[in-house]
């Protein structure tokens, strides 16, 4: 199973800044191993976020996003104590969701 994400959600004014680190190889499918064999592509394709269960963000990624991806965005109206959940899904169909409380 994939390692957990690290999510920080900090409220400031009328919104909360969300910073996410995801544990993922983000293999492009263009690299070769030491034996000269192409390493198959393996990367996160979809990222979604929910604020207290309501979808607020959806993104599509390609393999150009760096290994162990970082994403920062702001959710309007999110207050201290609210829940922010982030989900990713990769091209192998693996998925992971983690949730934090806004502080």
């Amino acid at each position: 199973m994939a390692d957990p994400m690290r999510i920080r959600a900090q409220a400031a004014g009328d919104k909360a800044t969300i910073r996410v680190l995801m544990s993922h190889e983000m293999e492009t499918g263009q690299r070769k191993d030491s034996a000269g064999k192409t390493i198959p592509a393996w990367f996160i394709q979809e990222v979604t976020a929910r604020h207290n269960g309501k979808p607020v963000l959806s993104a599509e990624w390609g393999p150009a996003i760096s290994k162990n991806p970082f994403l920062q965005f702001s959710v309007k109206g999110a207050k201290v104590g609210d829940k922010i959940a982030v989900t990713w899904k990769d091209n192998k169909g693996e998925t992971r969701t983690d949730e934090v409380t806004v502080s």
Partner: protein
Amino acid sequence: MKVFRIISAVLALMLAAGVQAQKTTAEGIAEYRKMLEDGNPADLFEAKGEELWKTARGPNKVTLEKCDLGLGPGVVKGAWVQLPRYFADTQKVQDVESRLLSCMATLQGFNAEELAKTPFGRGEMANITALATWIAASSRGQKFALPQSHPEEQRFFELGKRAFFFRGGPMDFSCAGCHAVDGQRIRLQDLPTLTKNPGDGVGFAAWPAYRVSNGQMWSMQLRLNDCFRQQRFPYPGFASDLTVALGVYMGVNAKGAQSIAPSIKR
């Protein structure tokens, strides 16, 4: 007409960009590094390390919570900035990774020799790196103060110093060749002076670090291992006396330097 307006706006922007590009290379690199500081993937390894410390594992199915990192069983905070140090139970000077080998063997029942032979980034070695990352992070902001009271600690400092200046290999390189003079660079990479305290969060006080070039978490053992690779030396044993002695030399020299580990590096 609209097109012309757009074009002139674009040209104005291009001119502005031209002025901006006057920045020096060093300033540009500094700006790049600054941008990466917030959101260091080392956090992922730190979290994994904490989890591993508290999880019952190994043949004995116990946690590492009774492991003594030098400040007493289970004390993690503050331990990092006093390592490597002498441990009476093993009668050895040990760095954090050497010490983790001992704890994983005696408490959890792992085979230390097998662990030490595991390649970096694989299996239990990846776990040791994550543990070291968390242990280092637990002393973030503290100043290095390696003990030098035990004769073995003093001896390891002297041995480490000699190893630091040891010149060899097909390119005649030593640690000192790149890390004994202020202000030196390889390509654009600044080289910390490790024969003295190079400053807060520089050199010894910056590792473990997340390496963006390969997306790996690098412990001090791996850092030294790759230094020797680049020096064109043969392969140094994991947690060997040589690598621990180099840690003592650099750590003692870094006395008073504030630890920022885990950091993020090129």
